[in-house]
């Protein structure tokens, strides 16, 4: 069930990414929906599941970008594993905590990708101005927080409904 849910999240991320790119060409410049899925999954998953999810989602992201294949796979593996380890040590339940984690993860991912580009390409150059990287981290953080709040809300409502049903069954 958990794997199915994860695949549904990845499919949703792909869908949102493609629709976003249809709406505005700057979508991928300012939001990374793939990273949001990796971080939100890693907050609740084991570190092994988180790193494998990071690898899978990162490689999917690599398919639709033009750098050396595996850049995002590498970066998202580290981000997924790091987030899972962090979530095992800290209790991250508040939306502000999620905002900070997703934003930091987005910044870390970009730093890793740029570092790898400098290592791999013969004539590397800084890809984007620094402020765009900051905005991307912030916007990805906001999107992650919004999704986290919405899923929590949905989960709580489902739980209330389930309890209501159970109590009616007992009374009946």
């Amino acid at each position, binding site marked *: 069930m958990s794997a199915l849910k994860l695949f549904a999240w990845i499919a949703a991320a*792909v*869908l949102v990414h*493609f*629709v976003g*790119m*249809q*709406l505005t*060409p*700057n979508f*991928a*410049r300012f939001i990374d929906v793939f990273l949001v899925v990796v971080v939100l999954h890693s907050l609740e998953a*084991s*570190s*092994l599941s988180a*790193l494998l999810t990071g*690898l899978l989602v990162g*490689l*999917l992201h*690599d*398919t*639709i*970008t*033009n*750098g*050396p*294949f*595996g*850049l995002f*796979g*590498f970066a998202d*593996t*580290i981000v997924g*594993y790091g987030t899972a380890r962090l979530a095992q040590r800290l209790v991250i339940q508040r939306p502000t905590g999620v905002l900070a984690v997703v934003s930091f993860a987005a910044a870390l991912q970009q730093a890793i990708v740029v570092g*790898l580009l400098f290592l*791999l*390409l013969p*004539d*590397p*150059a*800084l*890809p*984007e*101005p620094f402020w765009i990287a900051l905005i991307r981290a912030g916007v990805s953080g906001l999107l992650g927080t919004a999704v986290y709040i919405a899923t929590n809300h949905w989960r709580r409502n489902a739980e209330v409904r389930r309890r209501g049903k159970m109590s009616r069954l007992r009374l009946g």
Partner: protein
Amino acid sequence: MDERRTGWVLIFVLVGQLVYLAVQGARDAGSQTRLETVGLRLLGPAARTIAGIPTNLSDAREGAKLRGTILEENRRLRREAEDLRLKLLRLTDVEGEMRRLGSAVRYTTPPAGRIRAVDIVYVDHASWLRTLVLYSGDQEAWVNQPVLSPDGLVGRVIAVAGPYAKVQLVTDRAASVGGMVLRTRRQGVVRGGSRGSGGLELDYVPLQADVRPGDRVLTAGIDGVFPRGIPIGTVVSVEAGGQLFHRIQVAPAVDFGVLDQVYLLDFDTVPQGFKEDLSGERP
């Protein structure tokens, strides 16, 4: 699995990926990986489906307006087709004359190649890892195949997965095209501009060469990928950079923001037999 073992898995996965990236870097820039092909096969249909849906109201409104003016549009296009037919007649005449003159001095003109229209299913021209994904239908594209638009050069195919093909845009930092200034025939290397500017740079043009803003830059046909004479862009600025070469900024001829269809050029610049001769051992 305990955390220690997971740590080893992480190290194994990261080292594996680093080796994979390093091997890719060492290989030919035009080569594609199997994983990339699988990814493209998975994501290509999704991109194509979404590209086919009108995503905003303005598109729908524009469609309705177009339907209203379709007759007028048809008349205008017929007139244009007539004009173009006349121009074609004149050009065929000029071509024949050129061939006759060429044969008089034993000059063989290179083959022009055929073009075929293909749909764009995904384009990201704004971010720094620029990408274009094409749907070429039954007839597959091939790696290093030139991609054009009516305005000029778009890029080259770098990965093919069935009917889907990934294109490296000419504005990509890693892309290089042999270019020449039309006015002076001075050759150089056109590359994607730095810092995600979306522009181009013409490198390796000596300081003594005459290059001015406004000069048109075309493909030189010296890179073994693109034939000669495809518009690349227009020189925007020329500065003295370093001791030997100019620093030349070029604005691309193609507006990547309005592309919805491009053309694949069925053209092999270097004949297959000659390529085999080059790659084979020499006596």
